[in-house]
């Protein structure tokens, strides 16, 4: 489209009283050659918006630069479909965080305005990359989580394919004798029928759900909206088009054979909590050794859990399960259940369950460490305790139940069998002990494979109620994923974004840096090793753009040249006491933190200019070289926390930026520029209070190093 520019300067929110709007207009007119320049005392008000709308309608302006407030506010007011809209946040970055009417404030306002004009010049209106998609949902796993997800999606109207590896739906619930009631208040009876059959029936009779039993996912190719999933049922296999996937593959009990120290495998009357369900299911609680009724049943909690030698985590369900199973024991009124625990963990409403179950005089609990389990007469079992309030004593039981923990199905099996260059399973499983979890703390269910959502005990240890809530959430995300895929929009976290990475492939050297570094496996390679995008998998973070040494990756509104040109628009004071520092900041945490600083009217050192990026992963080193050659004194990268406990919305962005930074230092050394002129700071949004000081410290560091020798060239 032919761009027709218009600049609108808002004078409200004390902008008009703090900077010289007249001077800004003159600059825009003379130096930046903007044809239409208007100011208004309340641009976001009806009159202001109408002013803009009128210009669009009558003057045909289509590229709007709004020198007003942050793009993070008033986005509904300043939404002009069909127009490029650049928001220049002078209110936050020149007015609220600077001294009003100071030369610094004026210079900042002009710089931000200039950068926005450049950005508008360099950007294009995005057009979605639409491909043919389907909206069906594949659910892997026919346990309570999978069935719930399938039902939720089917009830919404989605076509669902449910794959279960066993011959019967139901998963672990099939092996349970009873379950914990799910009513609002817990009262006797504290054990109720699982009623799993009715859920199985609901799934199998739902016309929107196609069930594959005794089946496995052999391969998942393609991308969200257009996955090609091969399902194998014994001899035959079938490939189906799928829009999105809910991974609800569930869990396995930890291998109790490894719990010899607790008597498992050595003593006949030591069983796991899963085996205990089977025993209870047969009616009376009979001991395995002699089939006599068990009268003194001991439950050893955290058996091989929260234990560095076994499972380091808590499986979340065993405490409530032990209380439930204690009630199985107490169906015989002479029998006692003794629960030996490290801690009872029954969060939320389950605390009431704990209280109710504990009220039974025959349910005895004590905190202790189990020191050892040995054989007693008549196949009974001695459990030696230490650090118990009962003293360092031994309990005699005629049956021992070990609370063995949950191991995710994804620990040893990729389950999904992805046809991705980066591998068949989900990345990062090792961060979560094999669970298909993620550090997307704001977006649970999301995995690092776009369009694939994990739910239930494969994601985190949890109980059946929680698994069903998980399933509902994941089903909703799967539906959302399909809707976005259908219109060529990013699935998440830039869930509004219709831009996509467009690579100028003729210049590609097949270095494969992009295919290796893409956090989401969105880029595969053909037989010749040439990368190609599976756009549906892309989250639009621009990590490939930062990775590419040939700088061939662009988005319509975000590319290497655009940021490079904006950098050139920043003023560089001649005065050697006034350094100029660029802060490249991530839009996810860093930039909102800056906005918050502004909202609090905290002052920020006038030396810095902020440039907002999609992710620090998109930082291309050429920007840094360009900036220094222009006389910029220092560059700070402000991004999310990385490492095992990362907070990066794009998982690897800030980590990659830091890695690349180590490379840039070599280049700087060659230019005889101090490596310390570039720094990366990790910040979370709630650290905003420290931000002014972090920036001042960095500015002081640059001042100490002295001015950039390239200044003035």
């Amino acid at each position, binding site marked *: 489209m032919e761009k027709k520019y218009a600049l609108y300067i808002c004078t409200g929110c004390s902008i008009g009283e703090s900077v010289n709007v007249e001077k800004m207009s003159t600059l825009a007119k003379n130096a930046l050659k903007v044809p239409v320049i208007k100011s208004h005392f309340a641009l976001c008000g009806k009159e202001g918006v109408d002013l803009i709308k009128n210009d669009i309608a009558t003057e045909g302006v289509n590229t709007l630069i709004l020198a007003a407030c942050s793009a993070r506010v008033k986005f509904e007011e300043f939404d002009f479909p069909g127009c490029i809209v650049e928001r220049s946040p002078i209110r936050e970055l020149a007015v609220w965080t600077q001294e009003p009417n100071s030369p610094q404030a004026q210079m900042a306002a002009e710089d931000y305005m200039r950068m926005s004009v450049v950005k508008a010049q360099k950007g294009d209106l995005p057009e979605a990359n639409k491909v043919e998609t389907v909206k069906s949902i594949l659910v892997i796993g026919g346990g309570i989580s999978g069935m719930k997800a399938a039902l939720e999606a089917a009830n919404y109207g989605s076509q669902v394919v449910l794959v279960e590896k066993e011959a019967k739906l139901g998963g672990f619930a099939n092996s349970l004798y009873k379950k914990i009631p799910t009513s609002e208040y817990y009262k006797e009876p504290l054990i109720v029928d699982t009623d799993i059959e009715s859920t199985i029936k609901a799934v199998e009779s739902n016309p929107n759900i196609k069930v594959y039993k005794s089946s496995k996912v052999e391969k998942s190719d393609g991308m969200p909206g257009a996955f090609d999933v091969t399902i194998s049922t014994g001899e035959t296999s079938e490939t189906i088009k799928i829009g999105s996937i809910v991974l609800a593959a569930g869990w396995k009990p930890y291998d109790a054979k490894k719990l010899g120290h607790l008597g498992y495998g050595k003593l006949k009357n030591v069983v796991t909590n899963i085996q205990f369900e089977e025993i209870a299911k047969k009616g009376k609680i009979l001991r395995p050794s002699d089939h006599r009724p068990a009268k003194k049943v001991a439950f050893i909690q955290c058996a091989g859990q929260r234990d560095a030698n076994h499972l380091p985590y808590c499986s979340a369900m065993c405490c409530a399960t032990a209380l439930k199973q204690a009630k199985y024991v107490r169906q015989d009124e002479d029998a006692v259940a003794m629960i030996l625990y490290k801690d009872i963990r029954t969060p939320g409403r389950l605390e009431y369950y704990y209280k109710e179950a504990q*009220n039974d005089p025959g349910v*005895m609990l004590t905190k202790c460490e189990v020191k050892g389990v040995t054989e007693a007469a008549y196949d009974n079992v*001695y459990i030696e305790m230490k650090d118990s309030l*009962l003293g360092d004593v031994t309990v*005699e039981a005629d049956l021992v139940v070990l609370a063995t923990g949950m191991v995710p199905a994804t620990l040893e099996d990729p389950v999904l069998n992805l046809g991705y260059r980066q591998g068949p399973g989900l990345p990062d499983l090792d961060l979560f002990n094999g669970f298909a979890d993620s550090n997307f703390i704001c977006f649970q269910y999301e995995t690092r494979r776009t369009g694939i959502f994990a739910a239930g005990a494969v994601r985190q240890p949890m109980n059946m109620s929680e698994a069903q809530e998980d399933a509902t959430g994941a089903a909703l995300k799967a539906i959302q994923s399909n809707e976005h895929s259908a219109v060529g929009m990013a699935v998440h976290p830039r869930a509004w974004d219709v831009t996509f990475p467009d690579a100028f492939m003729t210049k590609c050297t097949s270095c494969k840096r992009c295919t290796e570094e893409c956090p989401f496996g969105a880029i595969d390679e053909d037989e010749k090793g040439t990368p190609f995008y599976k756009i549906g998998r892309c989250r639009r973070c621009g990590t490939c753009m930062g990775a590419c040494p040939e700088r061939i990756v662009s988005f319509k509104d975000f590319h290497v040249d655009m940021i490079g040109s904006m950098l050139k628009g920043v003023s560089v004071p001649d005065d050697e006491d006034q350094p100029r520092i660029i802060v490249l900041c991530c839009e996810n945490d860093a930039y909102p933190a800056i906005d918050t600083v502004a909202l609090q009217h905290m002052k920020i050192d006038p030396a810095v200019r902020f440039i907002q990026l999609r992710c620090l992963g998109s930082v291309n080193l050429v920007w840094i070289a360009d900036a220094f050659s222009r006389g910029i004194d220092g560059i700070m990268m402000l991004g999310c926390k990385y490492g095992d406990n990362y907070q990066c919305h794009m998982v690897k962005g800030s980590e990659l930026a830091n890695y690349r930074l180590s490379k840039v230092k070599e280049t700087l050394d060659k230019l005889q520029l101090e490596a310390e002129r570039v720094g990366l700071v990790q910040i979370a949004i709630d650290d905003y209070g420290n931000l002014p000081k972090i920036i001042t410290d960095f500015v002081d560091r640059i001042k100490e190093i002295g001015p950039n020798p390239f200044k003035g060239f």
Partner: protein
Amino acid sequence: MAEQIVSPDLNFVKEVIAAGADSLKKCYQCSTCTVVCEVTPNNKPFPRKEMLYAQWGMKDQLITNPDIWLCHQCSDCTAFCPRGAKPGEVLGAVRKVTIKEYSGPRFMAELTSNPKYALLLFAIPVAIFLVILGAIGHLDLTAISLNENGVIAFPEFIPDIYVDMIMVPTAGFAALVFLLAITKYWSAMAASAGGVGGGDIVNSITGTLIDIFSHKKFSACGVAKDRKVSHLLVFYSFIGLAITTSLGVFYVYGLKWEMPYPQTNILKLIGNASAVGLLVGMTYMITNRMKNQAKAGLGSYFDWLLIVIIFGTCVTGILAEVIRLAKLPVPAYITYFAHLVFIFVLFAYAPFSKMAHMVYRTTAMVFARHIQRD
């Protein structure tokens, strides 16, 4: 295996619960109780461990444990318990079970601790005294003559010798039960503690008595700190009444001088002062209990039975005197009769009722002091 083998006793758990510890199972061992308790020793503090012993039905650990008597039921633990487990009340119930364990014969303990026998407790002395009155032909109260001075005199209604014929053996029985009980209790505690060491028992007794006479432990109480005043009043009034009774015995059998005595007599001075002290103390105690009900719990049947007995003894005693002075013979005799019934109940069931605490607690406190527990 060197360690002790724990065998939970479900029936004992149920017994403790039935004895008034219906909140027992609510405890989740957070230890707030031991932290807030001002009277517990720092080493192996109570009442947390006792809560657990009780939950697990570990009878032996409880009934040989002097700690349950070091507790003065200040109820700070109960007030601060986040689970409403009322450790103070639970220990009260455990003390009751302990008394029942050592004070024989068993049926007497059952009679005293079970609310369904409440009326029977009183019916027994009523029957006894009615039989005596019948035997001496004094059932027609209007026919009772005034004494030689022309005033109402209770010995005219029922001669002292008959009263003492009943009361002295009753008190003797109680004393014997107590003696046997604390002997058993002491050796059980000693066996459990692995011996008592070779300290000076006289010192332990003196020290304990000083503590008791000064009510030192009560001073530490938080929630129920007013109990110190009320209990102190009741305690010293009891001593006053014991002196009064001793003087009475001396007057009747030594001086051959029968009731009533002039109000200026030393016996009357002490007796009346003690009676008023007891009335005030008991009233204060009852109001405190009602006031602290939410924080400390209302108390069990066991607690209230003793309160009723002492309060009844006190009120009937005072009323009998007042009505006698008001020259209303028949009401005076009836009240005196009631007074005798209450005194009988107080004595006869003392080793089985909460009254036993004065002996058990003293024994346990001496024991604890003797083994340097406290």
